[in-house]
Each structure stands twice: as structure tokens, then as C-alpha cells.
């Protein structure tokens, strides 16, 4: 199927556009582990696999690679492989993974924080801890899903760099600079990337009904804007069918308002 030749589904809502944007982050990834943390990233990876990226590998979030479709929330799966945490680490250190995950803070170079808000010795808010963020961002592609684009999340600086951005990576080895890659930041307003000469954040497309001012106002730092700034595309008819099949309980509409 081709996104370019199919017609857009007229009934698509903001959450459906976001699902496609999350899926698009995995386009061209081929036979690697497409890992989604949370509903929209998971839907994105599974949608990419079900449509334009059939060789992508997705997991059930426990310890198994699954063949075919696995709807969000379903456990009725066809196992195609075993991926316990030790093999997750081996796979990610080997670079055969692209994860899309959340962030409580992200700055203009893509440094991210899921660990704590406020000083590390006594946080104002203790969050998850760094988890695998440092190892993920230095070893393989990491994209982000931010459900509420706001100045609080899109911050001047992060309180704890659980994931390293382009400025931190630039101070490390040539190997790191060659392998560090943050392909996309998808939010409820827009799709962003770091495809600027200085690897600072750039608006790539706006979701239907969102203005560039809306995005600037919800961001604490200066954003570059793509010369060919476009509207984030709606799902094709085939993609819409796949979205409904993969998210039968419509959890996406609870996560993203219109």
C-alpha cells in the first residue's frame, strides 16, 4: 500500500493523525525492534508494522516478539521470538532498536528527563529514575511522544539528563556522534525533529487546526521551522482500518483530545 496514492479518510481525528505521525517515525527502520512505551508509541510501532514497515519487530511489552497484529490491551498473540530484558539490553547495545518513549522535560537539543524534577539530592518530584534512557540514547534511535505540548515540558534545560541530546553527544566520541540519533518528537500539536545545522529542534509539520504560533507559545525555547512546513497527514483509508483494528477500545481518543 502507498500512503501517497491512497485517499485520506475523512473521519480521522487528531488522535488518528498522531498515530500516523508516531508510525512515520519508524518508516525505513526495517528489521529492528520498534519499541513503543505507552499507548500512542505502541500504536505507532504496531501501525507501522501493519502497513508500510512490515519487517519491523514489535513486542507484547512483556518478553515476546509478536507476529501479525496485536491490538492494544490484547494478550491473544502469536509469538515469533523471546525478548527477555537481557536480550533487550543486548539488542539495544547492538543498535538494532528504535524506541519511542515519553519525557517530562525536553530541551532544544533533545536532552530529556524522566528521572526527577528539581535537584537530584532532594527532588521536588521524584519520577521514574533514569531507567534505560542513558543507554538507549547513546546506542540507538530514540523518538519521543509528548501528549501535552507545554512550556513546562519543552523546557530551557532539563533537571536531570536521563537521555542525552545532540549537544551532550557532540562532546563524546566519534562513535557516539555517528550513532546518536533522535529522529522525531511527536506531540499533540505537531511533529518536530532535529534536522537543522546545529541539531536544534525544528517544527516539521503541524497537526490540522494547529497554528505555528500555538506551538511557539507552548515551547520555552526558540524553535526552528522547516522551510517546507506541512500539515501532519491524515491516515489513509487502509491505515484507518488498521488503527481501528489495533486500538479497538479507542484508548487513543482518551490520550489525545481533538
Amino acid at each position, binding site marked *: 500500500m502507498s500512503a501517497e496514492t491512497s485517499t485520506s479518510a475523512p473521519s480521522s481525528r487528531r488522535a488518528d493523525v498522531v498515530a500516523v505521525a508516531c508510525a512515520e517515525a519508524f518508516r525505513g527502520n526495517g528489521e529492528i525492534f520498534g519499541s513503543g512505551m505507552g499507548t500512542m508509541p505502541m500504536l505507532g510501532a504496531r501501525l507501522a508494522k501493519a502497513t508500510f514497515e512490515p519487517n519491523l519487530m514489535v513486542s507484547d511489552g512483556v518478553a515476546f516478539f509478536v507476529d501479525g497484529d496485536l491490538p492494544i490491551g490484547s494478550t491473544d498473540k502469536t509469538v515469533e521470538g523471546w525478548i527477555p530484558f537481557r536480550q533487550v539490553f543486548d539488542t539495544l547495545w547492538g543498535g538494532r532498536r528504535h524506541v519511542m518513549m515519553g519525557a517530562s522535560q525536553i530541551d532544544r537539543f533533545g536532552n530529556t528527563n524522566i528521572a526527577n524534577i528539581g535537584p537530584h*539530592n532532594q527532588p521536588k518530584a521524584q519520577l521514574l529514575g533514569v531507567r534505560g534512557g*542513558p543507554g538507549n540514547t547513546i546506542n540507538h534511535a530514540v523518538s519521543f511522544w509528548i501528549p501535552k505540548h507545554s512550556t513546562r515540558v519543552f523546557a530551557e534545560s532539563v533537571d536531570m539528563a536521563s537521555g*542525552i541530546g545532540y549537544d551532550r553527544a557532540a562532546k563524546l566520541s566519534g562513535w557516539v556522534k555517528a550513532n546518536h540519533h533522535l529522529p522525531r518528537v511527536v506531540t499533540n500539536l505537531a511533529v518536530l525533529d532535529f534536522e537543522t545545522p546545529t541539531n536544534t529542534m525544528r517544527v516539521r509539520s503541524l497537526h490540522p487546526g494547529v497554528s505555528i504560533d500555538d506551538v511557539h507559545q507552548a515551547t520555552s525555547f526558540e524553535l526552528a521551522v522547516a522551510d517546507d512546513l506541512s500539515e501532519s497527514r491524515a491516515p489513509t483509508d487502509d491505515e484507518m482500518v488498521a488503527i481501528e483494528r489495533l486500538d479497538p477500545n479507542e484508548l487513543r481518543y482518551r490520550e489525545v483530545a481533538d
Partner: protein
Amino acid sequence: MSADSTSTAPTDKVMSPDEAVANLRSGMTIGIGGWGSRRKPMSLVRAVLRSDITDLTVVTYGGPDVGLLCAAGRVRKLVYGFVTLDSIPLEPHFRAARQGATIPEVVEYDEGMLQWGLYAGSVRLPFLPTRAGLGSGVMDTNPDLKLVQSPYDDAEELLAVPAIRLDACFVHMNRSDARGNAQFLGPDIYFDDLWLNATEPGHRYLSCERVVPTSALLDEGTFHTLRINRSMVDGVIESPNGAHFTSCEPDYDRDESFQTEYATAARDPEQWQTFVDRYLSGSEADYQEAVRER
């Protein structure tokens, strides 16, 4: 343990949770197996709560084990990659302890760094190199971490994760024989073999759902599940429902309603005292009885 010096059989290591913990001392470094709120050796953690040992250095992929030990004030130093209840992302006791700065020392690692530290400890190397952690907040908050340069042509600077050696550890398995040949039957062993291997012989405690005869070890799983052998274990503790309220597949799933009750109580001091009175003020048998009566 067998006192029969003429016996030709391997040592029987079966003991109770309280007997295991009675061997421990304040100030020890203790590793705890499992992952988040999954297959945690909770009966042994509860035995620590019944004891008076304190000032512990706790190393773990943390879940309610960390929460309970922090709430009881037993942790002097915490080494972790995360602390979570999985279905409830943030552990309330851990949050309170961090936000109140009541844990005197914390060492926060990337998940993979923690594995590497344990692996280095397991194979008696002083460190293992990795890129995970470089450039991140882990370096900012752990100024003692050192870099090492590759001695080969690439000459790359890497992070030298120091070996983690443990005085004692707790893991929970599905089955074991009386000697410590043990079996996981669920989807993931996590890093439980590494916790055992990174611990000085003497205090490697393995609880399990059921102690079975050695000849029955392959009744429920293939030989691939026998990842722990008796040279790695000093004490075997039969603890049915011993991982409760964390998951112990396929024997049982996480007790989500109990975990919610725990997390709700943990957010309020008065409710927490009621929870402690109801569940954590007696023996392991009393705990299991109180859980059954919910």
C-alpha cells in the same frame, strides 16, 4: 543444614525466612532480585522488616521492596536504575523518601550499567566498559565514576562501571530443590542469576514457591529453565505466595487490587499505620492469612 558428617548427599539448605535474615547484620550490602513489581523476594523483605537490621545498602531494579525498606527506615544507601510498581508507575514510599531526602546516599545508574556492574562482580573483574551513561545525568550525579580508554586503535573513551559485590542477596524462583538447584518458569529470569553470582558465598538466599525433589525439576519446565545451580545458593526458603503482591508467573499474576491498597495507604501516614498493623505486624504466615482474609 545437615549435621551428619558421614552423609554423602549434598547439603540440605532449607531454612525459614527468619532463619535466613537472622544471619544478616546491620550495614550489609544486599542485592534484591526481580524487576519492578515482578517476582520480588517479598517474604525475605518482610523478614527484614521483622528483624532489627538497618543501615543497609540496597542494590536493585526496584519495586515495593525498596518502598517497604525505605518506609521502615532501613536503607542507608540505595543503588538503583529505577523504582516502580509497573502498573502504578511511581512508588509512593520511594517518592516520599527521595523528596524528603531521607535516604542518606543514592547512586542512580542506567539499567544496563547496573547489569554491567553485577556482571563484573559475578566474574570477578574490577569493572566493565560501556557507553551507557556517558554524557548523561548519571555522570553528573556520580562524580566517582571513571572513564577508561580503549587500548586498541579506536582509543575510544568509555565508562568503566565498577564491579558490584554484595554481602548478601535475595531472589525468588518458582521451584528449587533442597540444595538450591532452582528454576524460573515465567517469561523472564530478569538478572537473578547475576545477583547470586555477585554475592560472597555465605549469604545467597533463594526463596521459591515450592521445594521439589531434584528428580521433579523437569516436570514443569525444560532444562533451559534450570539457570541456577546449587553452587550459587546458600539458603533455600520455601515461601508459597512469597513474591506477593508482585507477580510470579505462571504461579500467579501481580495482585493488582492489593498493590493499589498498598500504594493508596503509602500516600497517607495514618492509612499506612493501619496497613502495617493489618499486614506487616506478624509472621509471614500471619501476612498470608491476612491477605487471604481480604
